[in-house]
């Protein structure tokens, strides 16, 4: 009973947290602000966010239980759920006058029926093939798709679960090869469910991996459908699902796909917030964006880089907005405060883990050595060349690289500029990855060979979101304008 209750609590907790960002209108307001087709998009958004946020909260609850020496997981789970429900209610009250209002959906009749059917069919086929591949892969490799699954993530989960009061033993420099400094979202959420089951069932990490994979697809669809209509949503999801590496790595039990989920969640929440900014500045979705970026940092060290990059990119966006007319200016301090309020608790947890539990990481050495490595032209050229190649092959596409197809699509259909702040955040993150390879203490080609493609994949769902947000018909743009939304609301 406990495992079923645990899954339900996990999803309910994630849902409660998501409700803080996107409270649904009720009663008479509901029919005005949630046109029927968008109700499903909204529910999909909430369901997708619930998966990632629920697992994120569960990992923190488990970690705190271990730190405090408590074994009452269900009690703390229920307490966390109740607390988040309270926070959601607080945001609901604060934003009662500015419920999540959605743009007028693009009527399907506005698109050619044959194109709509073709796209829907392509999406159906893509999802079916992805489901088949995921099931086949998981059955063939129930313990994960490679070394990192059990040499890092599931090993840490075993230490957390089996270690009892000695769980810290696993985070020792003696096991530096297992990267004991890596954050614990994935291992702690796995260990949480193992504790509820009472055994280290290998199906748990497999199911969590699959859940993150399809939650990423769902989140991409929902965000695009709400913002640009379902044609763009379907095309975005087809682009993601036809990236073989994404589907394959979604079953590997690595942390890259979960990280890509939180990157996407951050940008999606920021975008949905910005979209209603001019009408009724809400703050719950910014709070959620902060939490999502915090969870990214709690998933993998690259997430810390992403968080820093997003903060810098947001500052840049604010500076840009200061050039706009006065009524379009973003309330800087409030926005920064809400974003930081979201990520601060998770960041505090990461600082505690890194400072008091984990040994130092292995990438950074003395400043002199790092500087020396950075200015070596041979290293610079090696990373540049490798990045150039991986940009075209990281997705394991068969004939034409997906990046090329998406670039062509953007060239033809990109009628809006790409969201500058979010794009800058992703570019800065990529630049950070580049820098890490320059200073790596490992053999540079070995390091690139075994990780570079996965780093590109982390950014891929967010990149697709930005590209497909930039497209959309003029009718969609009209339906999305503040004026149209005023009419809708």
């Amino acid at each position, binding site marked *: 009973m406990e495992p079923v209750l645990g899954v339900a609590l996990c999803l309910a907790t994630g849902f409660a947290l998501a409700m803080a960002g996107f409270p649904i209108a009720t009663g008479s307001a509901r029919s005005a602000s949630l046109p029927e087709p968008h109700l499903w998009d909204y529910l999909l958004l909430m369901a997708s966010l619930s998966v990632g946020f629920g697992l994120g909260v569960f990992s923190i609850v488990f970690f705190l239980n271990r730190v405090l020496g408590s074994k009452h997981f269900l009690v703390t789970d229920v307490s966390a759920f109740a607390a988040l429900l309270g926070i959601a209610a607080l945001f609901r009250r604060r934003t009662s006058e500015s419920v999540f209002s959605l743009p007028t959906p693009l009527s399907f009749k506005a698109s050619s029926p044959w194109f709509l059917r073709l796209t829907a069919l392509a999406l159906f086929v893509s999802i079916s093939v992805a489901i088949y591949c995921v099931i086949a892969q998981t059955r063939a490799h129930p313990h*994960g798709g490679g070394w990192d699954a059990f*040499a890092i993530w599931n090993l840490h989960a*075993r230490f957390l679960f089996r270690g009892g009061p*000695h769980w810290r*033993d696993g985070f020792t420099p003696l096991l530096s*090869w297992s990267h004991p400094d890596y954050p614990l979202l994935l291992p702690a959420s796995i260990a949480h469910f193992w504790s509820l089951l009472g055994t280290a069932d290998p199906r748990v990490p497999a199911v969590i991996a699959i859940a993150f994979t399809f939650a990423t697809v769902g989140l991409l669809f929902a965000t695009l459908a709400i913002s640009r209509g379902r044609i763009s949503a379907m095309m975005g999801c087809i682009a993601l699902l036809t990236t073989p590496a994404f589907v394959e790595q979604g079953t590997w039990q690595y942390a890259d796909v979960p990280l890509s989920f939180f990157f996407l969640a951050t940008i999606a929440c920021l975008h949905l917030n910005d979209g209603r900014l001019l009408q009724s500045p809400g703050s719950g979705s910014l709070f959620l964006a902060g939490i999502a970026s915090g969870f990214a940092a709690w998933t993998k060290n690259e997430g810390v880089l992403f968080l820093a990059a997003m903060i810098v990119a947001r500052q840049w966006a604010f500076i840009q907005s200061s050039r706009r007319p006065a009524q379009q200016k973003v309330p800087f301090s409030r926005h920064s405060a809400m974003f930081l309020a979201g990520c601060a608790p998770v960041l505090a947890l990461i600082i505690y883990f890194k400072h008091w539990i984990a040994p130092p990481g292995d990438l950074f050495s003395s400043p002199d050595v790092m500087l020396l490595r950075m200015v070596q032209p041979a290293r610079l050229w090696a990373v540049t060349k490798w990045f150039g190649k991986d940009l075209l092959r990281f997705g394991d596409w068969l004939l034409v690289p997906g990046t090329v197809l998406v670039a062509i699509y953007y060239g033809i259909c990109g009628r809006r500029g790409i969201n500058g702040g979010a794009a800058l955040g992703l570019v800065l993150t990529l630049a950070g990855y580049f820098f890490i390879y320059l200073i790596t203490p490992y053999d540079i080609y070995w390091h690139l060979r075994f990780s570079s493609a996965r780093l590109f994949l982390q950014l891929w769902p967010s990149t697709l979101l930005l590209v497909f947000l930039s497209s959309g018909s003029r009718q969609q743009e009209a339906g999305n304008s503040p004026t149209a939304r005023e009419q809708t609301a």
Partner: protein
Amino acid sequence: MDLNQVSQRSDQRFASLKGALPHEGIVGYVGDSGAPPGQYYLAQYALAPLVVEYSANPEWVVGNIPKNHPDPAAIEQLELVRDFGDGVVLFRNKGAR
């Protein structure tokens, strides 16, 4: 052999050894001479939450020697306590404190 099968088999191989080891702390490890480090990673995965140190210094040392070719220098100070079969043995370091 498939990595998953190796991992699963590794868990099974070390299952009986676990009962003879302390429940927490650090144990040592010796493997076949020239064996890939993956064998050691799998042993650590199977024996967690014990920390398996890749050395013969701790008091209890896990031997993972399916080919029975351990490094002679590594087992010089070790006393065989029990052979669990399938290349899994338990040593005791006579010189350990």
